[in-house]
């Protein structure tokens, strides 16, 4: 049986490693941001805000969004690590195993969580936005994200079937 060489795997391997590091760096950046946030005067001057109930809400909103952003970091990490593990199984020539079906299932749920968090961030954005200080988080409704969730759930099912078929083939000469 000839294996057709595809550059997809080596590229994926390298990209995933890079993304994992970038993700942690992003987490560190958000953490720093959250630590600065308590200093309201600094934020007020940075955003040229005048103390008012609106400005207060704005600051709390930004804090909430930053906190939610922080939550996505470990979720991203989980997705990337599982994907990396899956790429490894393909490299070793045996990807259709039950473990990968479970990994995909986990990734699907994580993607769903990310979509929901994105939704909440968008809602917060709408709530704290005022004519004086308009806020627009471009995590507004994106079909691609939800499509990815659906795709991954289906793929998890496909892999479960594949694992069954693979096991059936075990011991065939």
């Amino acid at each position, binding site marked *: 049986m000839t294996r057709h060489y595809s550059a997809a795997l080596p590229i994926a391997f390298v990209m995933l490693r890079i993304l994992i590091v970038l993700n942690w760096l992003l987490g560190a950046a958000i953490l720093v941001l959250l630590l600065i946030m308590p200093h309201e005067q600094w934020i007020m001057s940075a955003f040229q805000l005048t103390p008012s109930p609106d400005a207060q809400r704005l600051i709390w909103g930004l804090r909430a969004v930053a906190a939610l952003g922080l939550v996505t970091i470990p979720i991203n990490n989980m997705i990337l690590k599982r994907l990396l593990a899956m790429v490894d199984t393909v490299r070793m020539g045996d990807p259709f195993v039950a473990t990968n079906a479970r990994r995909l299932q986990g990734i699907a749920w994580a993607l769903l969580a990310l979509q929901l968090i994105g939704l909440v961030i968008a809602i917060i954005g709408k709530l704290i936005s005022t004519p004086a200080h308009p806020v627009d988080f471009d995590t507004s409704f994106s079909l691609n994200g939800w499509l990815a969730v659906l795709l991954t759930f289906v793929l998890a099912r496909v892999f479960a079937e594949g694992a069954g078929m693979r096991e059936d*083939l075990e011991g*065939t*000469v």
Partner: protein
Amino acid sequence: MAIIVKLDDLLHDRRMTLTELAERVGITIVNLSILKTGKARAIRFSTLEALCAALSCQPGDILEFLPDAAEEKEAA
């Protein structure tokens, strides 16, 4: 398994080693060993054909069905 593989006897009769058979048939020694020791769960027709050609025999010479073993499995 209720299906017995009689590769040992055939190899002995033909004075052939497993390695030689593997080379002739184009199957790995690992797979032939699995077959020989009764650990195989299924055999492809292509494999069976290659074996029969190499050993100049019929499928029935290689494979045997033991009804008693099958009944024991049913009861279990």
